[in-house]
Structure formats: structure tokens, C-alpha cells
């Protein structure tokens, strides 16, 4: 009987240790960043550069759709810095009083991703029958941008393109994968998404629409270290890295605040 109790106590201890280990997984002192999925390629380089000048700083980055991340933060997920792919998501958190400070970072352009040997050369080609087009869901930043673009086109063309849409994806990476897998002939994505992909090229949308502004938001309770990181990301030191990854500085587009 006593032995049974000891065993049970050991089991309970093991479970307790496992749960504690899983929940406390290394958040000690590291700067916790929630970043839009489209930053996956560029952010590590930016953070490396920042760490060179600030020894001992550590990061813990969680990537995801800006909306999911915002929702997680709303639900009480703990983070110091939120890098959103558009302003709406950050404003949503500001309304909840979760953001202490914000800074616009860079802009990203909408392009049409097609295969290198595709016959698609201009946006009008997407209105041809039998062309399969992938877009982001209207609720996602890239989808909202696409919707604005279509609305600015001649109505007949916009309708023909909409009729060719085979999917409205919840995430821009999935939209891009439709062309990579050959399931769609064209996909509306950000110009930066095409960096590092093989066998794809960008077709310009050829219309003037307001670009997408990336914004960094400092969460309440974040410490001074995080403020300087945000200043670094929005400052001139980071411009070269952003540009190499295909992002455009704010002043170049002229549209950003």
C-alpha cells in the first residue's frame, strides 16, 4: 500500500514537472516578439544586426497571420513587441489599450506571382477563361489589398477575374504555394513573398493602390530594451536590410504617415 502511494506520488511529481517544464519553456529575459508571417525571411537578419550592437539580448519569435497574432494577444498571450502586416490589426489592439507605443516600419507592394514560363504578362490576362487565380481571403491584409485593386479596375475585367478565383486563402504563404504547386496560374501576393522562390516571377499589377504599411507596436509593460529595438527596426540603420528583402522604406512610397 505504502509502495503504491510512493509510486503514485512519483507519477504525480513527473506529471507536475513535465507541465511546469512545458509551460515555462524558456521565456526568461528574452524579448518576446509576435511577427507577421511575411517577416519570416527578413526578421532574423534584422535581429542579428541588433544583437551585434546589444550584447546579451535574446529573442523569442512567434510567426503567424497578423490577425491570429492579434487575436492571441487580445486573449492574453504575453509578448513585448507586435510586428503587424497592416495597421488595422494594431489599431484593434490599441482600442483595447494593449499598445503603449507604435511606429510604422516599411511598406510592401502587391504583385501577381506566376510561373517563369507563364504566358501571363499583364493583369488583363487573368480575365481569360481557364486561368485559375488564387487570392487571400478578403479579411486578410493581402486579400483586402487585392479586393481594393480589383475594385479599381474596369468592372467587366474585375468580374472576369473574380470568376476565375479558385480559393480565398487565410494566409499569403498558402496563396503563393498554389502557384508553386501549379494548382493556380496566378496568385496575388506581396512582392517580398517572391524573394527566395525559384521558378516564379512577378507581374506588376499596374494600378496605383495604397500600399500595405507594416507597423510595430510596443505592448504595455514592455521594458526599455524593447523600445530601442522598435526604434532600430523603424530607423535608418535597418533600411538596407529591409530593402534587400524587398520591402520599401516608408518615404519612398510617399503614402505612409
Amino acid at each position, binding site marked *: 500500500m505504502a509502495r503504491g502511494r510512493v509510486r503514485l506520488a512519483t507519477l504525480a511529481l513527473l506529471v507536475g514537472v513535465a507541465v511546469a517544464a512545458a509551460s515555462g519553456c524558456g521565456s526568461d529575459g528574452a524579448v518576446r516578439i509576435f511577427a507577421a508571417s511575411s517577416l519570416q525571411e527578413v526578421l532574423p537578419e534584422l535581429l542579428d544586426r541588433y544583437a551585434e550592437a546589444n550584447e546579451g539580448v535574446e529573442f523569442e519569435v512567434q510567426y503567424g*497571420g497578423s*490577425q*491570429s497574432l*492579434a*487575436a492571441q494577444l*487580445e*486573449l492574453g498571450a504575453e509578448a513585448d513587441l507586435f510586428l503587424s502586416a497592416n495597421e*488595422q490589426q494594431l489599431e*484593434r489592439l490599441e482600442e483595447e489599450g494593449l499598445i503603449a507605443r507604435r511606429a510604422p516600419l516599411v511598406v510592401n507592394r502587391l504583385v501577381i506571382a506566376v510561373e517563369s514560363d507563364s504566358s501571363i504578362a499583364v493583369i488583363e490576362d487573368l480575365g481569360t477563361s481557364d486561368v*485559375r487565380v*488564387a487570392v487571400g*481571403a*478578403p*479579411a*486578410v491584409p493581402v486579400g483586402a489589398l487585392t479586393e481594393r485593386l480589383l475594385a479599381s479596375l474596369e468592372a467587366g475585367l474585375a468580374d472576369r477575374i473574380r470568376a476565375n*478565383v*479558385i*480559393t*480565398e*486563402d*487565410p*494566409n499569403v504563404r*498558402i496563396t503563393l504555394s*498554389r502557384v508553386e*504547386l*501549379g*494548382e493556380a496560374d496566378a496568385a496575388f501576393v506581396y512582392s517580398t513573398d517572391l524573394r527566395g522562390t525559384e521558378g516564379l516571377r512577378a507581374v506588376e499589377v499596374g494600378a496605383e493602390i495604397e500600399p500595405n504599411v507594416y507597423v510595430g507596436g510596443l505592448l504595455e509593460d514592455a521594458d526599455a530594451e524593447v523600445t530601442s529595438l522598435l526604434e532600430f527596426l523603424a530607423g535608418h540603420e535597418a533600411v538596407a536590410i529591409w530593402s534587400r528583402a524587398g520591402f520599401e522604406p516608408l518615404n519612398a512610397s510617399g503614402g505612409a504617415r
Partner: protein
Amino acid sequence: MPRRDQWWVVLPVLFGVFFLLPLIGLGWFAITDGDVASELGSSTTWDALRLSVLTATLTLVLAIVLGTPLAYLLASSEAGWARLTATLLDLPLVLPPVVSGIALLTVFGRRGYLGDPLSEAGITLSFTTAAVVLAQLFVAAPYYVRAAYAGFTAMDPRFEGVAYTLGLSRWRTFRSVTLPLVWPALAGGAVLCWARALGELGATLLFAGSLPGRTQTMPLAILSAFESSAGLAGAVSIAVILVAFALLLLVLLHRLSTPSGAYR
């Protein structure tokens, strides 16, 4: 005060609470923050719900029609290939659904191995409602086949033997002897299969996409709502509708699968 030797009852109670609390939390969140009424009035929600029920039910029918003979065949064979096949059938259960979606694309997609012959025959599968059913079938049917296989394996073959010696045909034996014996296993598997198909997300997204009215099932609608500016509140409202609906159908299915409703 429970008896001294019944302390273990605490464990199932704790476990029950663990499952119940999140559901209560979801419902409470939807009531306080969400807007279930407006989602109930939204055509997107109804389209998604209709599509979900339609595809999950089609999946179940296909799983039963194709899976029952397969399970029977595997269970009545002693050969090594039968056991290997039974093991392989478990594979979709452990595959992350997204991987299942990619796997389906490599075969049935436009660039898939069967893509060219299919398109020459004028058939496009990916990104159609049919693709939704195939994705669900791939992910959910193993639950049914697994349960049916276990049922057939556990059955004493002497019952069938006796039926044959009495001169019953193969089909008659299956209908009047085998089926009533394995009914609980089949019904349990069917419920699991249907439920899993209803909740399928990853494979569907990859293989069928997400287009309202055509391929956007409930889970995809919930995902889209989660990503939208309506965000969490919208997603939870739709989720609660799905949960309520699923619960209703599960209760019905369970009634069908209990012995009193069994095939006679």
C-alpha cells in the same frame, strides 16, 4: 463522502472537467463577446454549414460502402499483406492533415501523377467540392475502417460457419449473422468517421482551397473569421453554431448506434 477505496473516482471527474470547462468557456465567450444571432443570419455561415453536412455525410457513405468490404476482407485474411494493409490504414490517423493535403495534391492535383490523364478526361478534382469529400475521406475513413476491422476480427468465425452449413448464402449470412454481431463496432466507427470529417481543416485547405459556397466548410469558415477583423468574436460565434449542430447530430447518431436501434 465516498468510500476509502473509491478515491480513484477523482481522476475521471477531473478528466471530465478538463473536457467540459473549455466547451463551457467557448459558449460563455460567444454569449458575452460574440454575436451568434448575426452569424446565424449570415448566408456564409449557412453555406458553410450546409456544405459541411453534405460533404461529411457523403464521406461517411463512401467510407461505409468502400470500407466495410475492405475491413471484412482484411479481417478474414491471415496473409501478411492483410496485416500490412491494416497497419498502413492507420497512417492517415497520425499524418498532420496538411501533409495529407499535399499527398493528395501529388496524385490528384493538376501537376499530380494522375493530373494529366484526369484533365484529358475532362476532370478537375482539386479545388472543387469533390476535392473536399476526397480530403475528408482520406483523413476520416480510416477511423471507420479501423473500427470495422476490429469488429470483424473480434467476431467468432464459427457463427458464419454454422450459417453456411445451414445453407445460407454468403450475402444472407453477412446480413443476418455477421452484421448484427459487428453492428456496435461499425456504428461507433461511423460516428467517429463522420465527426472527424466534419472537423476536417488542413487537408481540405490544401487540396480543395477555401471558397465560400464551393469548398469553404465550417472549419474553414471559422478559420477565415478568425483571421478577419471580426476576429475572435466572429470565429467563436460560428464555432459555437458548429458545436451545437455537431452535438445534435452526434446525439442522433449515438441513438442509432445503441443496441435498441440495432439492425435486426
